[in-house]
């Protein structure tokens, strides 16, 4: 059996474990949210999981002299067996994913992001890696469902739809060291954009729950679920930091693409559909960063802009590769 087919089997196994992690996270999410009103955000410093099963971790006080004081705003994590299992399964799936992708890379003798199958797997791996890296310092168990679910979706799409249609050859013009630089930056950006979009989406839901709670409305189903996530203000800050981190990386991905284009096609910018949409994504996220510091645009509006930015990124990947023709259509489906 070739390395690639072993890798494919292993990747399927990883997908199954991701699915297990997703269900465990979902169970934990539903179980540890409680039938209480979301606290009004004015009391953001207070722990929110008011009714959470009694085991609130001590919230570090503002007076703490520990470094990284901004981390103290993380939510006290309710102790949950399901969440523990989910995290273990995520680590296991990540390990399988990493090994499978490495085997694939060795098998094809190049970096594993030269076609859509490989790019999807690499971007999903990057998203999960960022999550696992931040899981402990930022206490991000509550976010697990919203990272693992899109990762599983991406991996599933790669295995079921993209793999059977993927060519076993890459075009000679892709075979350049810029493939390593440009496409890896794009894949990692993709993983982080997904992460940022998940936090932003939760921010919007939580913000609405808080507004309703402040208006004295009865908690709906979403409001109850939103007791599991940190206060809107915290989510907003986290979303901003994720996007502030990924924006320079995305800028670099676009710029390195331009440098490659100059060396491959003789112009650094030619409004090829892929370039056009990379530009649109860049402009929309730049808009988000500005909106976030503009009166009347911060909060919900800025969050919506970030989600629009993510949508343009997704379109650039799936829409441009599969629907539009252009110089980037060699991506081997």
């Amino acid at each position, binding site marked *: 059996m070739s390395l690639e087919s072993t890798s494919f089997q292993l990747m399927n196994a990883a997908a199954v474990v991701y699915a297990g992690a997703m269900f465990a996270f979902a169970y934990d999410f539903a179980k540890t949210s409680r039938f209480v009103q979301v606290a009004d955000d004015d009391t953001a410093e207070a722990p929110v999981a008011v009714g959470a099963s009694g085991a609130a971790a001590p919230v570090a006080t503002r*007076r703490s002299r520990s470094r990284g004081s901004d981390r103290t705003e993380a939510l006290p994590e309710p102790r949950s067996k399901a969440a523990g299992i989910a995290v273990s399964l995520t680590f296991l799936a990540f390990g399988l994913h990493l090994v499978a992708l490495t085997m694939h890379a060795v098998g094809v003798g190049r970096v594993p992001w030269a076609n859509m199958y490989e790019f999807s797997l690499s971007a999903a791996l990057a998203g999960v890696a960022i999550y696992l890296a931040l899981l402990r310092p930022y206490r991000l168990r509550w976010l697990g469902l919203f990272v693992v679910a899109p990762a599983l979706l991406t991996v599933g799409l790669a295995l079921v739809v993209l793999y059977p249609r993927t060519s076993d050859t890459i075009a000679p013009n892709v075979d*350049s060291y810029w493939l390593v630089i440009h496409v890896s930056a794009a894949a990692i950006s993709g993983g982080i954009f997904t992460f940022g979009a998940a936090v932003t989406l939760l921010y919007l839901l939580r913000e609405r729950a808080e507004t309703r709670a402040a208006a004295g409305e009865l908690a709906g189903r979403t409001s109850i679920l939103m007791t599991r996530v940190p206060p809107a203000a915290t989510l907003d800050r986290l979303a901003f930091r994720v996007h502030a981190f990924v924006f*320079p990386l995305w*800028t670099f991905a676009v710029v390195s693409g331009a440098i490659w284009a100059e060396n491959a096609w*003789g*112009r650094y910018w030619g409004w090829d559909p892929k370039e056009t949409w990379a530009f649109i994504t860049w402009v929309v996220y730049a*808009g988000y960063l*500005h909106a976030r510091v*503009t009166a009347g645009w911060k909060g919900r509006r800025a969050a919506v802009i970030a989600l629009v930015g993510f949508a343009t990124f997704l379109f650039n990947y799936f829409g441009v590769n599969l629907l539009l023709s252009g110089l980037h259509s060699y991506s081997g489906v």
Partner: protein
Amino acid sequence: VGAVGWLRWGWRQLTSMRTALILLFLLALAAVPGSLFPQRGVDQAAVREYLADNPELGRVLDRLSMFDVFAAPWFAAIYVLLFISLAGCVLPRAWTHAKAMRARPPAAPRRLDRLAHSRSGVVDESPADVVEAARAHLRGRRFRVAVDEDDASIGAERGYLRETGNLVFHLALLVLLFAVAAGSVFGFRGNVLVREGYGFSNTLTQYDSITPGRFFSSSDLAPFSFTLRDFTATFRTDGNSVGAATSFSSTLEVTDEPGAEPRVVEIGPNKPLVVDGTKVFLVGHGYAPKFTIVDGEGETVFSEAVPFLPQDGAFTSTGVVKVPDALPEQIGLNGIFLPTASLDLERGPISTFPAPRNPAVFLSAWTGDLGLNSGRPQSVYRLVTDDMELIGRESLQPGDSWELPGGVGTVTFDGFVEYATFSVADDPGKWFALGAVVAMIGGVLLSLMIRRRRVWVRATRQDDGRTLVVVGGLGRTEAAPVDDDVAALLDALGVPEEEPVPVASPVMPS
């Protein structure tokens, strides 16, 4: 409100962040049709095809510049307004920042305990010693420090580079726009097809198509020339992508300038030829079957390799031969060249592999008036058969001859050569553009990573002879680690851990 008032109001509106945001989104929105409709700057043929398929809609879209989105007046209007708005916002800010860089950090406010990040404690050292220790500590942590010895207080601030980075980013964006503009008015792009064994010299007339910038003059063309010695492509012969290209390579004999010693250069994907800032890229390839044609009067009137255009991935290629000098009648050939010929029952003659395993041509011969003297421009790849008559069809393999019906002549398929298409480009603005984007990335990193904050210290002698130290901090940007700064400063000053809250009002010196 007079005219000046309105102007001032308009300027304020234009340079407001709200307007900049709206323009930013308009720009993103305006770019969308550029990816959905074929663009003249990218693919002229696709635009012509679209217009032919949708004449009604196409005309409307064309009037709206939908096929030249990125050269459209409305697109230019958006980005010009955006850049004016940007300049109007950034330049005054740069001025303010330049002044702030030279100014001292602000003095300590009277009530430090009212700041969000405020802590205090009592130590035994004298106020002067505390202030000196605080100054040394803050300097060590790369704060700018202003000491007020009379008040025994310090104002300190760090993170100025955040605004510097922010301004560098936006100013570099302006530079980028000018670099792009400079490249498009001083540079050029051209395309040329060269057959194996033939040459090209870098002059305007040798290009098949050329797009010079507005201020580009033909004397700017670097005086090099080259001969295409050999073109080689290799293809997959197994796996699930049989026929996919695995390598392209052209061997050129290049003369950098008239009289220079020729050098042999191999170019390929991602490996252009560079002569004096001009780059030559290998962008395509195809086959040029070679025909020799003897006319009805026994004269050899044609002997040349004719480039045929590939129609599919297996290089089923089409082309035409026009022989205006043939007597008694002009001869035209419509041809299909197949590197690996096979006859498909439904689709007719078709190639099944891109490399020449079984080369053949399928020809249809026409006689009559080629229409070359009608004054109407003609494509060299299309035979105008309005005044011509089809006299026969034949398939030939290399070396075969075909005697045309009616004694109008003989066609010999001598064989074929390969040809390569090259894109030649010079963009003198690109180095400025590269410098600008490097500055942009550096600037955006600084502006997003650096967090600006202020710290103040005041030391006051208490009635018991000890010294009350009050420290206050203010984050000037989101998530500034002011608590860390305050905590580290208290540690450095030897203020005991955890003092009871709340902080008592300090005894102010009378």
